[in-house]
């Protein structure tokens, strides 16, 4: 029975991927991509990787989907179709097929059972006082990767802001819609946002012992902020706001500070003070979540439009 479900899911995934590529219109392709991300999340649940599933749905499908939809709207309605290069298309197809075949071969060539450090994580996890091995890997055993990931996220926002007309990236990003929010949007923002913020904070808190954590929580909080903006409940923040910029930096630089402090307390970069591991880990998670939420929200809102003249 579950084999049948998995088989249907795999077929749906293939069909979804094909749908994204085969759809001619940009907007339809983006919507297909969002649906494909939801299916992919379901596949991760089937693989018992609930943390990955949450992240895939919140970031891969949700936030990326909104960014792509905004891009589609910013494009001209009837793009100038460039003359298709008769050489380029077959070349692109060949490169794509070669990559697919190489990936398939690599997957098939994996040793059975796959090399795993899951047992090492399971034996070392009690020392961290965490119940969720994924959080343990992200914040303790592979903390360096997570730290760099936060820096990359910050850099992607810098990339978005680099498109600003204002050299100092001041001002507010352009509003999502010039018209006032429709009444149902305002209603949804007022009713759903408090619940959503609670869910986001729960995901952060539960992340220590259950699926969830900084990234999922940050994505939910960012979504609630965007919902409030779309429902005209809050104004888009001005990007030169010092508090806002501090929130952007809290995660990466807070983590970095803890990392350097690790030399003093634990004798190694990114070590946690013995005895207080869990408290420090949770503090780092809170700072990271704050930065992720604000960064993701600002990435969706786009480059600031420059300082207002008043």
């Amino acid at each position: 029975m579950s084999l049948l479900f998995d088989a249907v899911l795999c077929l749906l995934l293939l069909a979804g991927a094909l749908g994204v590529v085969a759809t001619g219109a940009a907007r339809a392709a983006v919507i297909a991509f969002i649906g494909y991300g939801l299916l992919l999340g379901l596949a991760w649940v089937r693989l018992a990787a609930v943390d990955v599933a949450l992240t895939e749905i919140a970031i891969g499908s949700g936030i990326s989907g909104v960014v792509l939809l905004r891009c589609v709207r910013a494009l001209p309605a009837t793009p100038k179709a460039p003359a298709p290069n008769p050489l380029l298309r077959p070349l692109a197809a060949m490169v794509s097929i070669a990559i697919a075949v190489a990936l398939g071969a690599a997957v098939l060539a994996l040793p059975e059972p796959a090399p795993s450090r899951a047992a090492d994580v399971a034996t070392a996890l009690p020392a961290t006082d965490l119940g969720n091995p994924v959080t343990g890997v992200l914040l303790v055993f592979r903390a360096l990767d997570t730290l760099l990931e936060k820096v990359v996220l910050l850099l992607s926002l810098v990339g978005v802001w680099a498109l600003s007309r204002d050299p100092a990236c001041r001002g507010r990003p352009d509003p999502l819609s010039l018209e006032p929010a429709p009444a149902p949007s305002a209603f949804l923002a007022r009713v759903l946002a408090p619940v959503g913020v609670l869910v986001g904070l729960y995901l952060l808190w539960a992340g220590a012992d259950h699926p969830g954590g900084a990234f999922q929580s940050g994505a939910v909080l960012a979504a609630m902020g965007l919902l409030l903006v779309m429902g005209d409940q809050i104004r888009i923040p001005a990007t030169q706001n010092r508090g806002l910029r501090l929130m952007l930096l809290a995660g990466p630089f807070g983590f970095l500070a803890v990392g350097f402090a690790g030399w003093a307390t634990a004798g190694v970069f990114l070590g946690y003070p013995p005895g207080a591991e869990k408290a420090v880990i949770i503090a780092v998670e809170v700072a990271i979540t704050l930065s992720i939420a604000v960064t993701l929200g600002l990435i969706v809102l786009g480059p600031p439009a420059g300082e207002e003249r008043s």
Partner: protein
Amino acid sequence: MSLLASAFTLVFVAAGIGFFAAGTLGLVRLPGTLSRIHALTKADNVGLALIVLGLLPQAASVLDAAKMVAIWLLAQLASGAVAQVMAEAVMAEATLAEAKDAGDAAPPEESRP
């Protein structure tokens, strides 16, 4: 007792799937965006309610049951509001297209170079 609970679950989940199937059929077959939204939101909300109701006897604890009911309520809220937003967008687009058609019917000379 457990047999009764299982039978309850089977009946209600099957009925819920039936509503979902009907909603999907409406999404695929009905003409026009508005009627499609209508079919989807109404049928799916009832379908989800029936599935949640059917799964309640299987919940391990009262808290789990409450979480399922909360999911249904949130889905109801979101789908209802989103359906309204989408419908308004469709109407606005239709009005815009109409105005454009009216403009095209009597084209001012300078707009067509």
